[in-house]
């Protein structure tokens, strides 16, 4: 995407403050690539005591629907190794209260808002998108991949045609100039095919990935832990899976901006996603462990770039797909049109006679 990266030695590393972490997501430039992930930050306000929310890329709000939703019964959560299962069921106040309270709070506090929308039908999504016209929204994320819907077989993101229909409805109704990102599920045979269909339908970018479906069973009660039986698995347990999805989609669609999501816990985890092809990252479950994680991860990412002598985050997007960069000493002769050197041939070696 960009030119060759100059990776220098740490002796002339860039001061952290001078590093450019800004990222261009389908024409909208964000000063920082770290966002909160939908469903893990409510609508931001609860995290204000622990983060400067204006400094991070933005808050991706919990998926909002047209009507208020109570969510599912409890237990809604089960801790699993390096992760958790949740079956919240998209609890939320509905779009009216969301616009009046949550989105207003974000705007009043100069926090960039990425609004996640979810619906039960293509029509729902279209209506939600049109409700965002004239609102302080930096980007729209279309949640077509929540596993906690009534009919778990009907996740839009598991079907090429359904994904495209939803994305097209959103793009048609959404405010122009506001990028539309589709958030995809890893629970598919070919995520590239879904990604391609969303882009063809007008998605300006992709958020990869939502949770993957799992079950936990209580060996005392001998029944599923979650009231909803199945739940979405998140946290570091799914990081390699998420990274693989980002890798595959970036390889197939290198010009489509990606928000990388899945088990990011540190700045180096975020860097992995950038190297795989993400232009930005969202941090989710780690917030439950560390409510100041969004700010911390941004700080750690900046330090990671400084350590590597990289000035611009954008230069690293997808870098891992390219062949290794060889570090060339500064006093080496510049490459030119010199003739190919003769192939190296070893000289014959004579051996001493072995000692008695």
């Amino acid at each position: 995407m960009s030119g060759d990266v100059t990776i220098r030695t740490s002796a002339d590393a860039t001061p952290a403050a001078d590093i450019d972490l800004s990222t261009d997501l389908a024409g909208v430039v964000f000063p920082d690539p770290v966002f909160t992930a939908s469903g893990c930050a409510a609508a931001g306000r609860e995290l204000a005591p622990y983060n400067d929310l204006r400094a991070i890329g933005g808050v991706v709000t919990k998926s909002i629907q047209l009507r208020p939703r109570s969510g599912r019964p409890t237990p809604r959560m089960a801790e699993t190794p390096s992760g958790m299962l949740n079956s919240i069921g998209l609890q939320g106040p509905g779009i009216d209260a969301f616009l009046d309270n949550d989105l207003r709070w974000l705007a009043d506090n100069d926090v960039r808002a990425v609004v996640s929308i979810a619906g039960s039908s293509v029509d729902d999504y279209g209506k939600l998108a049109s409700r965002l016209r004239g609102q302080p929204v930096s980007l729209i994320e279309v949640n077509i991949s929540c596993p906690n819907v009534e009919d778990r077989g009907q996740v839009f993101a598991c079907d090429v045609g359904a994904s495209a229909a939803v994305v097209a409805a959103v793009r048609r109704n959404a405010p122009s100039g506001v990028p539309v990102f589709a958030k995809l599920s890893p629970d598919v045979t070919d995520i590239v095919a879904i990604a391609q269909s969303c882009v063809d339908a007008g998605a300006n970018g992709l958020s990869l990935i939502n949770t993957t479906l799992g079950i936990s069973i209580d060996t005392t009660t001998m029944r599923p832990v979650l009231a909803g039986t199945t739940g979405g698995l998140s946290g570091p347990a799914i990081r390699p899976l998420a990274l693989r999805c980002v890798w595959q989609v970036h390889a197939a669609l290198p010009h489509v901006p990606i928000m990388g999501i899945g088990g990011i816990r540190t700045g180096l985890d975020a860097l992995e996603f950038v190297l795989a092809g993400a232009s930005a990252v969202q941090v989710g479950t780690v917030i439950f462990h560390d409510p100041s994680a969004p700010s911390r991860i941004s700080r750690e990412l900046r330090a990671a770039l400084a350590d590597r002598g990289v000035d611009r985050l954008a230069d690293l997007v997808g870098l891992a797909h390219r062949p290794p960069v060889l570090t060339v000493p500064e006093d080496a002769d510049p490459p030119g049109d010199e003739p190919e050197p003769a192939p190296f041939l070893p000289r014959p070696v004579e051996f001493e006679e072995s000692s008695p």
Partner: protein
Amino acid sequence: MASTTRNPVQVRGEVLSVKQVGDYFAMTVVASGIAEQTRPGQFVAVAVSGDDGAMLLRRAFSIHHVADRGVYGGTVEFVFAVHGKGTAWLAGRRAHDPIDVVGPLGRPFKLPAQPAHCVLVGGGYGAAPLFMLADELRKRGCRVDFVLGAANADRLFGALDAKRMAASVAFTTDDGSYGERGRVSDVLPEVIERTRADVVYACGPMAMLQAVQRVAGEAYDGAGIPAQVAVEEAMACGVGVCMTCVLPVIGDDGETRMVRSCVDGPVFAGDRIRWDALGTVPSDAVGAAAMGL
């Protein structure tokens, strides 16, 4: 929701001590910024298993005691039982170990504006937050009586403190190993009558809280007195973002909503909780209809 003046902080604290108390553990953490702000009934959310550990979810514990000054600066004490790997990890901490604590969190007990007669009911280590509350109530000129119950004598928490602070203490154990055999709700009607109680405060298991609310509601031949109850719901974050700790609660407008016990509680007016619907979403709850699509 009305915003409150509380300002929780996240502190990289240090373990000052871990003491075994009967069947429980009491951990004191040096965590400046939390102690000064804590009001009775609030809680802390503690990270377990370290920065790279496999357990991601915070454990929430009622604040038992705070000291906002002294040689160590502010300290916070909480009480826990070893139920699983997370609490076992906590019990294995030693003095000077680092520990990440967020607090104070949640809405505290509401205090009577005028001196009142108060019965404080604790079940097991759920009694932990009641001693700060008793202190505060006594400062306000309230009469304080305790009812403490548990499965057995080793699981009674704070018996000595209760005896020291209260006008009277009634004990119950399921096995009769200490005090009366039975439940706190068995003796509570008599305690309310005898102490001419105006209000009940309670913390403990949900089934106990439900029984306490029933007794409070039936007190004085059905006239009833208010009960302030601190609930114990499983939480993942403690700060209001995960939406796992919800329970059905009736709001000022009469509508039932699935509210977060971490930010809208953990203390609720007992008559606002839909006790019979715990663990479910009542069909008349706001937004329940949208779930059935």
